[in-house]
């Protein structure tokens, strides 16, 4: 018996190795070639010089990093942080009550309400931005409505507020969904207990529901902040021609100025900010 038991695992182990090879190697090869190698190249470009007609000259330089801390570029990074943070905050303020109410709807309506939140997210991104150009531009709907009240017309496009509106419109569903799943998962008995013990609806919310939904809040904030911070399409289409956000700068370095080393350095800064944020998020989630 014993020797039999010993002899048997051998094909299983071989099977495991074969399995690991068959299943993992195609996908991992793809990831190495089209993700890790490209990211490695971008990383290495940060210490090289730009070529005269685009491309890269492989001579070491720290110039890209000194340029990065130029107030002009730091200002743009700060701008992006502010715009993304403001978008996230507003998304949380209107997304939370929405998710809270959806979680308490009868289940038939719940599905409908959730699908209705997600649906616009599945339509073409450029089209969603275009809708706002149409609404807010000079002769657009908002100005003609204001005109009927004897106001305006105002220049509603090409402000920071326009960018925030566009970002909010694009990413609000990403806030509502994780909030909904965090709130929905809470045991309703906890709230009932709190109410039975005499707490007002607001106290129950503040002491029970809100603290328990913090993981959802953190996820939602991350989901909105990340795509907002690195965006270049919305600031370009709704914010005018100025390079207001890091995304615009990066895009310009790659497709207009053809300064790939500096563009790569800006991209590295973008990733650094996001990684820092992820670390803070993980730390906060562990404490929650």
């Amino acid at each position: 018996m014993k020797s039999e038991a010993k002899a048997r695992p051998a094909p299983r182990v071989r099977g495991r190795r074969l399995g690991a090879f068959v299943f993992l190697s195609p996908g991992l090869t793809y990831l190495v070639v089209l993700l890790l190698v490209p990211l490695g190249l971008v990383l290495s470009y940060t210490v090289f010089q730009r070529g005269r007609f685009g491309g890269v000259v492989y001579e070491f330089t720290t110039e890209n990093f000194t340029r990065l801390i130029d107030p002009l570029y730091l200002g743009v990074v700060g701008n992006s942080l502010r715009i993304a943070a403001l978008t996230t905050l507003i998304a949380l303020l209107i997304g939370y009550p929405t998710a809270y109410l959806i979680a308490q709807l009868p289940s038939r309506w719940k599905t409908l309400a959730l699908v209705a939140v997600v649906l616009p997210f599945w339509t073409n991104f450029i089209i969603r931005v275009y809708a706002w150009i149409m609404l807010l531009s000079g002769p657009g709907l908002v100005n003609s409505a204001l005109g009927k009240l004897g106001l305006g017309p105002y220049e509603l496009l090409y402000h920071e507020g326009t960018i925030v509106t566009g970002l909010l419109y694009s990413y609000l569903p990403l806030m509502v969904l994780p909030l909904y799943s965090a709130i929905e998962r809470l045991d309703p008995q906890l709230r009932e207990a709190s109410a039975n013990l005499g707490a007002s609806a607001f106290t129950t919310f503040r002491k029970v529901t809100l603290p328990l939904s913090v993981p959802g809040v953190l996820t939602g904030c991350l989901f909105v902040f990340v795509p907002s911070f690195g965006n270049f399409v919305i600031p370009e289409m709704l914010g005018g021609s100025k390079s207001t956000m890091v995304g615009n700068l990066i895009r310009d370095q790659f497709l207009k100025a053809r300064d790939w080393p500096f563009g790569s350095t800006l991209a590295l800064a973008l990733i650094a900010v996001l990684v820092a944020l992820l670390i803070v998020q993980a730390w906060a989630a562990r404490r929650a």
Partner: protein
Amino acid sequence: MRRSKLLYVPFWATYVFLYLPILVLVVMSFNSGDSAYTYEGFSLKWYGELAGDERIRTGVVNTLVVAAGSTVIATVLGTLLAVGLARYTRSKTLDALALMPAVLPDLVLAIGLLVFYSAIQLTLGLYSVTLAHALFSMAFVAAVVRTRLTGADTSLEEASRDLGAGPVVTFMKVTLPQLTPGIVAGALLAFTLSLDEFVIAFFTIGNAEPTLPIVIYSMVRFGVTPKINALAAILLLVSFTAVIAGQRMTRIGESRAQD
């Protein structure tokens, strides 16, 4: 539970905010006038104009080619990867690597791929966009299939292996049929993501004939016209139908898998 009526204000505000722009967009697509701002009367002329636009037709074909190609690659690679990660390794690093294309900002993926394609001197075109789309789609397919695997009962797979079947036979005969709803959902997700993807396509298309989102982008830059509204209305109809059909299908798939 008493609920404050005040809560309904942000609730309804959310839906008005989400749907008002779409509604205006669609209404204006039926405008008989030449402006996308003032409604003059009902007409379908912009839909006719749209059908005659060569650039848009090419854009639609290109988008479908890229979406189909990248979905096939992503579904095959993503499914294998999900099985490999769930059954043949415990590495957290590999898990994180597989998710990375879905988590990284699209702009970072876009410049990485542009730099890589140019380093290997690949002429940019539809296939470079297809390969790029397959990269992030694969991460989504793997994640969707993975969620079905982690919850799944492994006893059938073990029984198959104990009866002498190798990993490949076990996969084909036992794992794959169980995974079908997840794979279908993942493939649908990959297809939809590719249809709408702009940033990565914009960076990796080069001077080739563009995909539809890029065509729309350049049209919008030349100004607002009801033709774009007509296109938008059609796209809205397509994606709404796809999302609802996708939901139905996964629900049917799930109830079948439970039977």
